[in-house]
């Protein structure tokens, strides 16, 4: 009787203990996280280097200007009375740019 009570108590204690080690749900990484951190750090640097080179190349080329198109009815639509007038707030760009 005493033995079965001890067994019951130990079983209850085991039930109450959280399962260790804690399992991470939604996790797919079976690899070493430190290794993965270093890998993704390198990938990020590679991405930054690529974007920087592309940005310098792009910005050094400059951009071409477009001619004003003919006044087709579907272009430059103005059918709302905005408080700032018929043109958009940033519309002046075509004139001074």
């Amino acid at each position: 009787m005493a033995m079965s009570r001890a067994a019951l108590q130990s079983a209850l204690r085991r039930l109450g203990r959280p399962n260790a080690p804690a399992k991470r749900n939604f996790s797919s990484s079976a690899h070493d996280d430190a290794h993965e951190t270093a890998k993704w750090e390198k990938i990020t640097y590679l991405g930054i280097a690529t974007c920087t080179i592309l940005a310098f190349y792009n910005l050094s080329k400059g951009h071409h200007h477009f001619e004003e198109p003919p006044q087709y009815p579907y272009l430059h639509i103005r059918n709302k009375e905005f408080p700032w007038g018929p043109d958009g707030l940033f519309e002046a760009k075509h004139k001074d740019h």
Partner: protein
Amino acid sequence: MFVWWRDVLRESTLEGHHTKVVQLGPRYGSIPFIVSEVMFLFALFRASSHSSLAPTVEIGGIWPPKGIGVLDPREIPFLNTPIPPSSGAAVTWAHHAILAGKEKRAVYALVATVSLALVSTGFQGMEYYQAPSTISDSIYGSTFSSATGFHGFHVIIGTLFSIICGIRQYLGHLTKEHHVGFEAAAWYWHFVDVVRLFPFVSIYWWGGI
């Protein structure tokens, strides 16, 4: 909104109410939220495809409509396409750093994530400034601006989300076992950076040449 999320952070981080079971709520909630966002953006890309695949006579029967100047897809649009995925790589770096317990590296990674996001938004602004057409120029302008504009808006939301995670990581809120807010931000950020490829291919590239 601010007060609501402040309360959630207090309940989860300081009061410890977010047990494993409670954490499932925001996790499962994030999935339909992101799926609905994907559907929203795809509806906008679909609007562009719908208008461009059979251009009406009112716009000259061609796409891009007659008289519309389009951006060269090889310039800023192409430059702005690898920036969000690079930022996505940085958020993955942050995730592994959190799991590895490298708290400082995780903060650096989130700084990189946010910086790349801000650069991307900057180039998007520059592109709009230089663009030959506006939202009021035909169906091309409407579909182009709503699709790219809403994508840009999502980039801004994701940036704010990552900034909050960066601050929380700096303050030591995120642990190896408990970082649901960060995971939601990372999922959202991957959605935003992958979705960028679609307007690039269908609107800038295919729709602009």
